[in-house]
């Protein structure tokens, strides 16, 4: 147990780093994801093609390779950033297609009649989307979006392998330094992740129930 106490300050800082990775990569992925989702249903063909290609590409590359690219290849291309920012870019790029897919599935979940009715009273594409479809889609999309963010929380651990001092990184260092107390150290690290993921899952479940009643 004393190993945990010994490493507690490091774990505290690492927890904040993980949280900030989650918040900033989450916000970035949300913005890019919404744009990609809008492009995917837009009337312009080239935007649709681009969005589909982007989604397919980034969803099928393992996160390890994306962060590897950010940590080793980008610096070579004269991108002069620290590892934290590089990991943030990688996590954002990896998460955004999942956000886009979640939003798009929400849009597809809105009954067809809603859009038909909106168009029949003369609304245009932008109006249909922003006034009728999106407000309904976003409500349905919140639980899957939270699931995406839960996955993102867990994925931040991969950044720890690429020189970002977050929970996984500290846990690995601490476990190497204190070979006699590996189990408590790693369980404590797991607990720190659960502190973030379990409440998020709980909120997702609550919202899901609420929305289910409303529909």
């Amino acid at each position: 147990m004393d190993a945990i106490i010994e490493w507690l300050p490091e774990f505290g800082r690492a927890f904040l780093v993980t949280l900030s990775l989650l918040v900033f990569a989450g916000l970035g992925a949300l913005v890019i994801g919404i744009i990609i989702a809008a492009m995917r249903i837009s009337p312009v063909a080239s935007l649709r093609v681009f969005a589909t290609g982007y989604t397919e590409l980034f969803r099928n590359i393992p996160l390890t390779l994306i962060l590897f690219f950010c940590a080793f290849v980008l610096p070579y291309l004269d991108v002069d950033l620290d590892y934290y920012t590089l990991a943030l870019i990688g996590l954002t790029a990896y998460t955004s297609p999942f956000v886009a897919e979640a939003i798009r599935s929400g849009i597809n979940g809105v009954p067809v009649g809603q859009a038909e009715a909106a168009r029949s009273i003369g609304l245009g594409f932008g109006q249909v989307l922003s006034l009728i479809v999106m407000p309904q889609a976003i409500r349905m999309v919140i639980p899957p979006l939270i699931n995406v963010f839960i996955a993102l929380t867990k994925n931040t651990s991969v950044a720890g392998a690429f020189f970002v001092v977050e929970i996984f990184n500290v846990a690995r260092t601490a476990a190497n330094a204190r070979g006699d107390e590996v189990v408590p150290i790693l369980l404590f690290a797991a607990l720190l992740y659960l502190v973030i993921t379990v409440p998020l899952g709980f909120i997702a479940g609550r919202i899901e129930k609420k929305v289910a009643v409303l529909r």
Partner: protein
Amino acid sequence: MTSVLYDAPGPRAKRRSVLISIIGAVLIVGGLISLIWTLGQPRVSANGSIQPGMWDPSRWDIFLDVQVWRFLGQGVLATLQMFAVAAVLAIIIGILFSFGRAAARQWIRTPVTVILEFFRGMPVLLMMLFILLVFATGAFWAGVWALAVYNGAIIGEALRAGIQSLPKGQREAGLSIGLTPLATRFRIEFPQAFRQMLPIILAQLVVLLKDTALAYIVGYPELLRNATTFLANFYGNRYFFSLFFVALGIYLVMNLTLSWIARFVARRTGPKLGKTTGPASHVPGIDGTRAITLPRTDADTGLDQTGL
């Protein structure tokens, strides 16, 4: 493409759409070309020596060597081996979890739920490290068990949802013809749940294949490790990027193939999924009404959101 979201474009809208398409394409292609050009430039490193550009033949000539491909092939095999073993174990663990989660007795259900939440909420990477350090299994089994337990937990949840979404009559009918509760679960409920959830299970297996790359971090000699550590060390660091991009390409091919198979299966078993979503998904009228719908592409099985 027609869509309920907008009218069929008239001449003006068509022109505008073509215009935006052309501008977008020019921007994208221009960006790609400038990226390729930048990569191709020779660069001066800190100590003044000039390194050849990314597309210089001296960075790619090792790919003429059969040995390189053989070594990459070994990496692919190691990756696929880990995937295969972990996938089988994950499905077995998933089945066990689903039975524990749907058990009639509280004292089974509660601990299984807690364990499942624990496994689902923690990073696979941390689990790999835990197994590697605590059980000293070696990198391969650490990767396999971590992937199996994590994905097993998710598959178990999917199967439980499948079992619980079945009409109550299925279970009642099984019991009423004299099957024991266990036999009802195995022979009546489970086969239906499994079929219904097959697309989700397959989507999860795609995630599993992607996550085998995490084993790189705990030191398992899989594709990425073989390419960027062993080969790059052996042939010299100037091949580092070419090897990385080749490994990336191989990963893309593997994942896209498996995703494609998963989608193919999902589409074949697709219509059955609609039944579970209840009355909300019911579209009045004949099937033809469904044809007018939002632009749906093949990704649209609604699966890939949870995984990552």
